[in-house]
């Protein structure tokens, strides 16, 4: 059986060089980096190097990088920590409807404690209109949190235009760049970004390690409180292995982004064209050009995503139906729904997220296996037979 992994949005395979670095480190480092002795120095220096590598990926400075346990934690930290440190400035925050749950849920909690949240709608491509932000800004607006790119549909948001607005109006701009960082070039100074979340396993690093970039001068209160790790901003003994792996992955990504983009985008377009040619009634999600290179999100009419996923899995093909987090939930993805797709169609969402691990062979194999699966499920679907009737 094949072993085709096309679920890079849920987490990329570890890059071989990252594996190598982690394996080496397993045998050399274990000291607590807070300690002054030789063992502490080894890990302390390894973390410092990783901090530089991650900073370089987004053109930040090392002391602007705070390691966290995930993109999720980075988002929680950014929202709760920055707002708490700027209570006097105001209580209004602007975000979008299509954010990840790690932004949406903390904001719901903040709403209960007195914050006011404006959630911007998106167009059919999942794109935010910067004009809407201008309209939403109030004197009490402290922060705007809009994702850099959406992991489910791939759309890259107009962060440049948004940052121009926030900079002019002196509002803090946080962006959840978990789906973007390491996959497309980011420059937090070229585009004036104040805070940015990322996650290592979106670009060849280990899962369960992330980082928050925080522009020097922006105040934040610790979210995880305790000791003085990460410059007193994030407590808890460091996940040294994970951080070292994230550093290496960031270094490799920075060097290889153009080459990876080229390869992955080509494969993705070939898969898209092939599917459109062999299967009818397909709706492509996300923006036609401004998208994460490897992202191909489809709604396949008349059938449901999980069934497709399970049949593909039986053929050794791993994809995801919507986001990793919604694949256990029963409702259609809030992201797909926000783009205006109707409920039944949204249930048929499947996400092929290609990465550097994929090849032409993978694409051909999927193009061979997918159409009969779709046909079989459609034959089983009451929606399909009804639609056939109404057409005849």
């Amino acid at each position: 059986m094949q072993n085709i992994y096309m679920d890079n949005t849920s987490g990329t395979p570890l890059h071989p060089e990252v594996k190598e670095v982690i394996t080496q480190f397993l045998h050399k480092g274990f000291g607590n980096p807070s300690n002054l002795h030789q063992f502490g120095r080894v890990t302390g220096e390894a973390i410092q190097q990783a901090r530089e590598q991650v900073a370089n990926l987004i053109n930040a400075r090392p002391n602007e990088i705070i390691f966290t346990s995930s993109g999720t934690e980075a988002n929680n930290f950014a929202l709760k920590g920055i707002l708490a440190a700027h209570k006097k400035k105001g209580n209004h925050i602007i975000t979008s409807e299509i954010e990840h749950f790690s932004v949406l849920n903390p904001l719901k909690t903040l709403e209960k404690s007195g914050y006011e949240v404006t959630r911007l709608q998106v167009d059919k491509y999942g794109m935010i209109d910067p004009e809407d932000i201008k309209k939403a800004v109030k004197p009490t607006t402290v922060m705007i949190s809009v994702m850099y790119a959406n992991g489910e549909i791939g759309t890259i948001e107009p962060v440049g235009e948004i940052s121009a607005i926030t900079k002019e109006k002196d509002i803090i701009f946080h962006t959840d760049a978990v789906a973007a960082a390491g996959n497309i070039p980011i420059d937090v100074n070229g585009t004036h970004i104040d805070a940015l979340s990322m996650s290592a396993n979106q670009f060849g690093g280990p899962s369960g390690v992330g980082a928050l970039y925080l522009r020097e001068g922006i105040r934040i209160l610790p979210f995880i409180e305790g000791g003085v790790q990460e410059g007193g901003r994030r407590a808890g003994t460091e996940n040294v292995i994970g951080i070292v792996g994230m550093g290496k992955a960031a270094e490799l990504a920075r060097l290889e982004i153009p080459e990876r983009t080229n390869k992955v985008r080509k494969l993705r377009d070939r898969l898209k064209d092939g599917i459109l040619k062999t299967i009818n009634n397909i709706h492509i999600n996300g923006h036609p050009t401004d998208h994460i290179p490897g992202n191909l999100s489809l709604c396949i009419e008349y059938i449901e995503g999980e069934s497709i996923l399970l049949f593909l899995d039986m053929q050794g093909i791993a994809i995801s139906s919507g986001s990793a987090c919604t694949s256990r939930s029963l409702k259609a993805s809030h992201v797909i729904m926000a783009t205006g797709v109707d409920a039944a169609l949204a249930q048929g969402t499947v996400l092929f997220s290609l990465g550097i691990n994929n090849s032409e062979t993978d694409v051909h194999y999927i193009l061979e296996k997918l159409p009969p699966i779709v046909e079989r499920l459609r034959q089983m679907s009451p929606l399909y037979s009804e639609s056939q009737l109404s057409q005849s």
Partner: protein
Amino acid sequence: MQYSAKVMDHFANPRNVGEIPEASGVGEVGNPACGDIMKMSIQVKDNVITDVKFKTFGCGAAIATSSISTEMIKGKTIDEALKITNKAVAEALGGLPPTKMHCSVLAEEAIEAAIDDYLKKTTGKGLEKKKSLSHDEHHHEHGE
């Protein structure tokens, strides 16, 4: 969340897929917003369900519960079929993940709806009172 081997068997090789051309009764339950639609048609002769077929739009568990419930009611009398609970359906599948229990409820409702339709057609009135399945039993989990 993992499906049992029995679920995967009924999902991969569903029994009794299709529609009965001139069915004694047809029931369709669920809606796309909730994620699943089940359509069940039954053939009844002398109060016995002689044939049953389903079509389902939904997840793995929805297809598996549809499939197994057709097996469970085939050859049963109307009264016997009405006694089949969603729990029995789930148990017959070797269990369902908690977030998927609602699929077994849907299967129970589909059987009921088909029988109701059959009774309406034959006796002019449907089931006395439907087993009222409270919506509470649909445990939805929305990533919160």
